[in-house]
């Protein structure tokens, strides 16, 4: 290994090398974990509200049954494949770092549940579909984890007055898939509520590739004095974004603060370390290394430490993320998003700015390097 290679420097100055690498790695870990927790909160809310709307849209009129004319009109539109009568209720679903959320339970007719689940790629992994007259419910695995519900358990406001789901339902099936929700039977629900009319709300399944056309049509429906509510992919996504906006703003502030503090610290450390080595640089310049060669070497040293720290930080983040997931978040039905391109771009700011803050003062110092003054010992 050549005497002036950067690896030789790292090996012979382990404490300095490690101190910088550790600072970078730990701050990458911190930033990565913060991104991961928030993104996962967002994602947990996303899969209960927005994700289902990739497969269908829903429409209803507040406090009353859905207007027959609207239903007929919907059926006539050539982008709607099916219009299913439905009612949507919610069950509490706690998401860490988020205000209380509800996961939707769709009340549908017996055959429609089967059909919609097929459409949404939801696979029953335990139990069976609900049967009429028995107040049965099937739920996504994340909900069962989140609420600690097993097959045969009962859930509802009759048992727990804090529960949003009115009445009492028995869990008879657990399914898996990208959307997090539950299904129960519309007939039981209508009997309880003494509703006679066929449609209370409607779930509209679009024909293939017609979701956007359907949603455009729904958005253009007259508002019926504001009583008509429409829930599409765009509208649910927008309202989630509104909720998350302030959270992301806080996140950006935290990111900037962490990045600023770390890069200023690294800048100081680099300056101190390089300042202590000015005899070395003066000698090298005197015996014929150009300023540029000396600066390039310093630059390579700073970059190397930052990149090694960054990679180490990513490895630590993956380990910590997996551990958090296995022991904390997956059991709560809120699995973490371990990997996202966003995490990399955000955390990469740490080595980027550290290199910048590390190299600029060193560069200024080396630019003014005066080997004669160093040799004469006046500085």
């Amino acid at each position, binding site marked *: *290994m050549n*005497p002036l290679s950067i690896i030789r420097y790292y090996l012979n100055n382990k404490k300095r090398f490690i101190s910088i690498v550790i600072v970078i790695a730990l701050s990458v870990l911190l930033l990565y974990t913060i991104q991961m927790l928030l993104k996962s909160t967002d994602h947990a809310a996303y899969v209960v509200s927005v994700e289902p709307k990739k497969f269908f849209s829903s429409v209803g009129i507040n406090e009353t049954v859905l207007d027959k004319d609207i239903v007929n009109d919907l059926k006539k539109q050539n982008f709607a494949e099916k219009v299913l009568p439905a009612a949507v209720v919610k069950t509490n679903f706690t998401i860490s770092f988020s205000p209380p959320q509800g996961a939707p339970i769709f009340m549908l007719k017996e055959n429609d549940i089967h059909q919609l689940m097929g459409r949404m790629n939801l696979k029953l992994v335990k139990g069976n579909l609900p049967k009429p007259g028995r107040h049965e419910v099937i739920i996504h695995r994340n909900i069962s984890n989140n609420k600690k519900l097993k097959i045969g358990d009962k859930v509802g406001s009759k048992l727990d007055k804090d529960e949003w789901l009115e009445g009492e339902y028995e869990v008879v099936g657990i399914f898996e898939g990208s959307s997090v929700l539950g299904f129960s039977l519309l007939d039981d629900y209508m009997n309880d509520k003494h509703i006679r009319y066929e449609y209370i709300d409607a779930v509209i399944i679009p024909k293939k590739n017609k979701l956007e056309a359907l949603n455009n049509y729904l958005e253009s429906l007259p508002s019926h004095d504001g009583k008509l509510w429409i829930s599409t992919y765009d509208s649910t996504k927008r309202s989630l974004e509104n909720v998350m906006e302030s959270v992301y703003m806080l996140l950006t502030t935290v990111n900037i603060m962490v990045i600023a503090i770390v890069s200023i610290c690294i800048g100081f450390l680099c300056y101190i370390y390089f300042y202590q080595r000015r005899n070395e640089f003066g000698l090298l310049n005197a015996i014929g290394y*150009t300023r540029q060669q000396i600066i390039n070497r310093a630059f390579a040293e700073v970059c190397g430490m930052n990149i090694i720290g960054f990679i180490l930080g990513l490895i630590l983040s993956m380990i910590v993320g997996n551990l958090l997931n296995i022991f904390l978040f997956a059991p709560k039905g809120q699995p973490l998003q371990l990997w996202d391109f966003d995490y990399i771009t955000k955390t990469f700011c740490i080595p980027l700015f550290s290199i910048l803050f590390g190299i600029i003062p060193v560069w200024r110092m080396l630019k003014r390097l005066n080997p004669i003054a160093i040799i004469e010992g006046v500085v």
Partner: protein
Amino acid sequence: MIIEGKELTLVYGIDKDDETYALKNVNIKLTEGEMVGIIGPSGSGKSSLLYILSGMKTPTTGNVFYKDMVFGSISDNERAKIRKQEFGFIFQRHFLIDYLSVIDNVLVTSNSKEDAMVSKAMTILEKLNIKQLSRRRPYELSGGQRQRVAIARALINNPKVIFADEPTASLDHKNAMEVMSVIEEYKQNSTILIVTHDRSILQNSDRVISVWDGCIKEEVNQYK
């Protein structure tokens, strides 16, 4: 003739109204294979002359000619390249890099660990009687040993010119004489310029030039 300084003047503090003439119209010629001593009291301008002749400092007026090159008309980087490939430097202080072993310090000039370079370095260390210390770090050496490593570093590239500024100032007399005898061995292949205020180390030099207040005067070598 290998290196020549013509009408060299160096003025410090020219823009500060506090002018110090470090050199006044100095002419100096060195020929291949000679060892020249430069002697004079502290502050007389010896180091200034060495820095100018080696291309580390630009004179206020006058010019330095090295082989077929004129220092005043080549770039900093070109002068650096000449220093690296053709000159060797020994300073009063050793300027060893503290985190590198002795052998790595010697090889810093070429920044190479090829076998040929390593064995050449070991030969020089052997001549300097410090071969057994090659794996040690500078802080594990005595002052005299450190200066020998610095000398080995200056000799490793077979320099055409060796510039030594008070190379023995930090050594006791016995060590100083030993070190000088190693430097003198390189006389056949190199031109050697030794700056000192200690006449006794110049016993074997071919010429002695004395510097007084920025002016030079050729001396008769009393030892010859």
